[in-house]
């Protein structure tokens, strides 16, 4: 019984939250890695693109709610998501037209374009704050729990409870669908193939008649969609706060680099590696240890690091990978 309790505790406090967080990071890292692979720079504005897209989605959600529209047991934000994506994509395409396209033309060094993305980050950050403010916003509605703690206890008779929130399930399902659609698109469609060809060898792709402007535009639209979806799912799962999204930049970059920059499969793996390490290292293992070792009463919480240091975990993993496998777990590119 105690072993079952320990397993349920691990499931409830580590596996379920880390899976949701990992899915959110993976979507963010996919956006970073696609931009890196095709546009060849590290986009520092990605976190704020996520915040911007989520802010727009929240505004549309409020609009829908005030019109009395709801999505039954699902959060209304999912209905608003397509609008958020469309608006963010329009914004990102306009940014590319006004800002980035020039640097592609003059073939600026990647580090210089990264610097440019810092400027875009400032603008996006300011716009998000003007648009929706700096306060914490909770916008999840619909059913709160898929499995509630009380039901689980009643059904199993265990002392430990497993609770799965609706937002967690939605995150994992949506992320799964999005990743499936993205890989199908990259592998099967003509546009997707041309994107991969462009990422592999720009000159060869241009020679074989691929339209670079189209590839770039499609990449930005996909990146905007991924950022908005990742941001909205994160916001549904936790809450929306513009500054937190800026801080997500570090675990997202860590995920993309750990997996291998430019490699979509690596970005997903990296997202889960980072999420599981973060959650399990900052979890207080006291309860699990007490179930597993009868009669053991540890003095401390058995927590390796306090939750405030979760960024240190992403950072440590990043450094270990940089030291021992600079191209990442899956082979990434190094420009």
């Amino acid at each position, binding site marked *: 019984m105690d072993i079952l309790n320990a397993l349920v505790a691990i499931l409830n406090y580590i596996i379920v939250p880390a899976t949701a967080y990992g899915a959110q990071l993976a979507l963010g890292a996919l956006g970073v890695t696609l931009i890196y692979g095709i546009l060849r*720079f*590290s986009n*520092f504005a990605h976190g704020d693109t996520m915040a911007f897209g989520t802010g727009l989605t929240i505004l549309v959600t409020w609009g829908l709610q005030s019109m009395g529209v709801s999505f039954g047991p699902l959060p209304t934000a999912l209905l608003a998501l397509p609008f958020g994506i469309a608006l963010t994509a329009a914004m990102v395409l306009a940014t590319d037209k006004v*800002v980035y396209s*020039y640097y592609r033309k003059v073939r600026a060094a*990647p*580090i*210089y374009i*990264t*610097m*440019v993305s*810092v*400027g*875009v*980050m*400032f*603008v*996006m*950050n*300011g*716009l998000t*704050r*003007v*648009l929706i*403010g*700096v306060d914490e916003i909770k916008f999840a509605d619909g059913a709160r729990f898929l499995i509630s703690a009380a039901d689980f206890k009643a059904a199993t008779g265990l002392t430990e409870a497993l609770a799965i929130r609706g937002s967690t399930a939605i995150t994992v399902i949506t992320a799964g669908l999005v990743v499936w659609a993205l890989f199908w698109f990259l592998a099967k469609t003509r546009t997707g193939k041309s994107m991969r060809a462009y990422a592999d060898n720009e000159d060869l792709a241009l020679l074989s008649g691929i339209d670079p402007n189209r590839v770039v535009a499609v990449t930005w639209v996909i990146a905007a969609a991924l950022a908005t979806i990742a941001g909205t799912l994160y916001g549904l799962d936790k809450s929306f706060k513009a500054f937190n999204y*800026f*801080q997500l*930049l*570090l675990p997202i*970059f*860590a995920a993309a*680099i750990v997996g291998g920059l430019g490699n979509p499969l690596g970005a997903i793996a990296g997202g889960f590696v980072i999420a599981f390490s973060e959650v399990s290292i900052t979890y207080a293992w006291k309860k699990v240890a007490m179930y597993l070792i009868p009669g053991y009463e540890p003095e*401390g919480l058995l927590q*390796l690091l*306090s939750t*405030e*240091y979760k*960024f*240190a975990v*992403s*950072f440590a993993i*990043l*450094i270990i990978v*940089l*030291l021992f496998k*600079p191209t990442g777990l899956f082979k990434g590119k*190094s*420009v």
Partner: protein
Amino acid sequence: MSTHQPKAAKGGKWRAPAMFGALAVLFLLEGTVSNSFFSGHWDNALGILRVGLISAILALGVNIQWGYAGLFNTGVVGFLALGGLAPVLVSMPPTLGAFSAGGWGVLFAMVIAMATLVAAVFLHGRLDTKLRGWAVAGVLLLGFIAYRTLFDPAVEAIQAINPSAYGYLGGIGLPVLISWPVGALLAAAAAWVVGKTALGLRSDYLAIATLGIGEIIVAVLRNEEWLARGVLNVNGIPRPWPVPYETNLQQDPGFVARATSFGLDPMTGSTLLVKVLYCLLFVAVLGLLIWAAQLALNSPWGRMMRAIRDNEVAAAAMGKNVTGRHLQIFILGSAVLGLAGAMLISLDGQMTPSGYNPLRYTFLIWVMVIVGGSGNNWGSVLGGLLIWFVWIKAGEWGPTLMGMVSTHLAEGTLKTHLLDSAPHMRLVIMGLILLAVLRFSPRGLLPER
């Protein structure tokens, strides 16, 4: 000082003096003219100048890294915060009994942690591949357990000492001026660790690694209460010599008499004198730094650095140790950032870790460097002062402008929202300035020679 000024592209040798002249006019207007754009108070003008000078030093530090060597450091806030720790550790009075309660325990735990890392690196270098992973992991695990068993009770003991007022180790009660170079040393040590791992890899890996170290240093300051009281803040950090306290001045009959002879009441006179003294002190430090930086830039060493920046492969082929030089310059630049961090804390008189915001302390500094002209030390000073002025004033102009625009708007949620959000417009303005300079004038206001 003008002998060191670079020959600029347009406007010849008069470009830099003209720019600095225009900047001086801005500060003069702020001090004298009172309308909806300028406050007309010298108090405000000097207040902006004071932090502007520190911003100029920060920009100088970033310019040493980016302008001389092309290193993209996005963890400025971390090195600044680490430097800010120095005034607390050096200049605060020691907390009675804290060191005997837990100080040795903490120190010993730190030694164990160091020894563990050294042992792990040593083992990794010596053993063959089969055993290596397990041995290193085992050493790290044992070391971590030993560290935590020593560290946790020591920290608890320190934090138990009068937690509402102290609960931290305190400092060693030395003058604040000594803490400034100590801040530089702390930041330099952190830079050595980061540089050792992330330099020599791709250029944007350094950007991402420093982004991480910045976040972590700020997190440490926020959470380690035994060190600097975390979010409880350390107050009452003494002022650097020769800056007096306003209340002391107001009680000094000699000062009151002199202030009245200038036609100032003692209150205004004392605040002005304090600000002027701070400004003079910071100008002295800035002058020293820029003298050293110009000397270095124009030396054979500086030429080598620029050669490496412009073509790493060619420089390496000429026998230059590119990674070694990069490490050197990364440490030097970070030391300047740490120095500025210590100065900023001794100006504020308190340590408030929750104020270390990366937008304000990392990316705004980058705007200063780029706008001023990367690679040009005087450009960084100009950019630091100018952008700081615009940043402060844009926070005030935004609401003023928005108020004018929305006067005819009906009272309601839209109007309040517009007015509330106006201060955030300065982020957009900074972004647009950065983008415009990068696009249309990539060499900045004062281009590199």
